[in-house]
């Protein structure tokens, strides 16, 4: 089972994110692998541990992306591809086009990635890639079942319940974080990661020209980032619940127009 896991390197959203003049401040930011992509790496590792094969990571971005790729290799992935990319703002459509070029001529059974990336929370790139590659897609999976001759069983969280699907490979699959708990890299894993193969490519190596990259290659544009209107801390009530609860409800009705 050959699995390619595209990952996105993102600012750690658990920490403070600052905006200056409509742009996210990168200075002093701690970068991590997007959480859902870690889930995807773990899913790929578990599958190759059971069925054989290799996990290849794919990262697109500036030099610092290689650190995220090394972290994924430290978890146990076998090799990585870094498309060194410094073309500026690029949307999901643009990224999907680059990934399509990377996939050309490569052998894989599955492209497995997070359902959305933690920086944009857009959830578009993987499905666009599937369309461009003319592959079937299943998004938001919460469980893998068995691999049989007639396909891989996957469990998808849909709007009406959990869908049980039979998927013929190769295919694009995105994961929900209920799928697994990603392993931590061990010290040994970190040491071994340094020696694992990291293929370095540029957009020129992929035969892409300027119109296909950055803002020119994008269909949508971010005009600016902003902090949303923050919720202010409201009133607090402490004491006997027999008093605080009726007090709160009274305020909810009179101030906030609660109706039950």
């Amino acid at each position, binding site marked *: 089972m050959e699995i390619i896991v595209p990952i996105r390197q993102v600012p750690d*959203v658990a920490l403070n994110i600052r905006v200056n003049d409509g742009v*996210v401040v990168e200075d002093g930011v701690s970068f991590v692998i997007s959480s859902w992509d870690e889930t995807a790496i773990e899913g790929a590792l578990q599958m190759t541990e059971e069925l054989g094969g290799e996990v290849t990571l794919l990262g697109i971005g500036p030099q610092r992306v290689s650190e995220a790729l090394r972290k994924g290799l430290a978890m146990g992935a076998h090799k990585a591809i870094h498309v060194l990319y410094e073309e500026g703002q690029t*949307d*999901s*459509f643009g990224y*999907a086009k680059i990934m399509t070029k990377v996939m050309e001529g490569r052998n894989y059974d599955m492209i497995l990635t997070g*359902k959305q990336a*933690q*920086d*944009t*929370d*857009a*959830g*578009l790139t993987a*499905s*666009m890639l*599937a*369309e461009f590659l003319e592959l*079937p*897609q299943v*998004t*938001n999976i919460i469980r893998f079942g068995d691999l049989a001759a007639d*396909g891989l069983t996957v469990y998808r*969280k*849909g*709007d*009406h*319940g*959990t*869908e049980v*699907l*039979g998927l*013929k490979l190769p*295919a694009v699959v995105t994961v*929900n974080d*209920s799928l697994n708990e990603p392993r931590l890299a061990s010290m040994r894993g970190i040491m071994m990661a340094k020696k694992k193969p990291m293929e370095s490519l540029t957009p020129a190596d992929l035969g892409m020209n300027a119109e296909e990259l950055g803002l020119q290659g*994008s*269909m*949508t*544009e*971010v*005009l600016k*980032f902003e*902090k*949303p209107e923050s*919720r202010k*801390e*409201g*009133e*607090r*009530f*402490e004491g006997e*619940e027999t008093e*605080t*609860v009726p007090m*709160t*409800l009274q305020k909810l009705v009179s101030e*906030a127009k*609660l109706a*039950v």
Partner: protein
Amino acid sequence: MPKVLVVAESKNGEIKKPTLELLSLAKSQNLQAETILIGNDVSSHADLLAGYGAEKVYLADDAGLSIYNTSQFTALVEDAAKQSGATQIWLTSSETGRDLTPRVAARFGVGALSDVTELEINGDDITVVRPCMATKLVQQCRFRNDGLKVISIRAGTYEATEASAGSADTVSLSIPEGDPRVEVRNIQVEETNEIELNEASIVVSVGRGTGGTEGCEFVKPLAGEMGAAFGASRAVCDAGWMPHKHQVGQTGTVVSPDFYFAFGISGAIQHLAGMSGSKVIVAINKDAEAPIFKVADYGIIGDLFKAVPVFQEEVGKLKN
């Protein structure tokens, strides 16, 4: 001339509220709107959709479409969009919408903007605001192309306005072949008699402070008594105390009700990202340092097991 094609959705024999929100939005913006409805036994909804402003209803009604699948749904939306001459396609942020939005966009060779919480529409010139970075930031975006624009809009962003009685102009779509590479084998359907999380105006939600299934079940009746949907944090669902369908959060259901009651929920980032759009947040937690108190409009520092019976009594009084 701008023309919107709304991708409608139904569940349990009813059109889902977010669909009506989208049609109402188109109407309020004086945009010509048509809609496509895909499913099994859904044709009877056409008049309702017309009443909400759909000038044409494209129907794909077939037993094989009762469960979502990417291939047929994408092909059907493509067909309807071409027949309609739509300049914009609007979808909701349901799981169907999330899967379908990018595939439809890529089918047409265009981009998409997803999970939009604000739209500024000037004909086909659209600027949007959407949350990002686990809702810590928002981004203002626009389309770069002049052609088709594909957007998904977060449920609860706009109101569904009252509709008039409608008589639909329907168009039957021919059902395309399914993709043999994806076989829908089964669906584990959830209970149908509970209020949908992303359509409820009140949500009563439980977290790890409940201590287990029993604790969650202790709070649950309050939801029913308040006419609320029942939600749970990821910790509660991952621990198996409550089924995942109740999960509120960035990877569960994103909710924006009028009132969100959080019982024993500490307020982890991905949870806040899933409910920070609530108009009023009420938190009940023993721990005064719980992050949820920073976003709660009303915070009760107390024992949820003592608070719930008092809530039940007071709610009973309010109803009489």
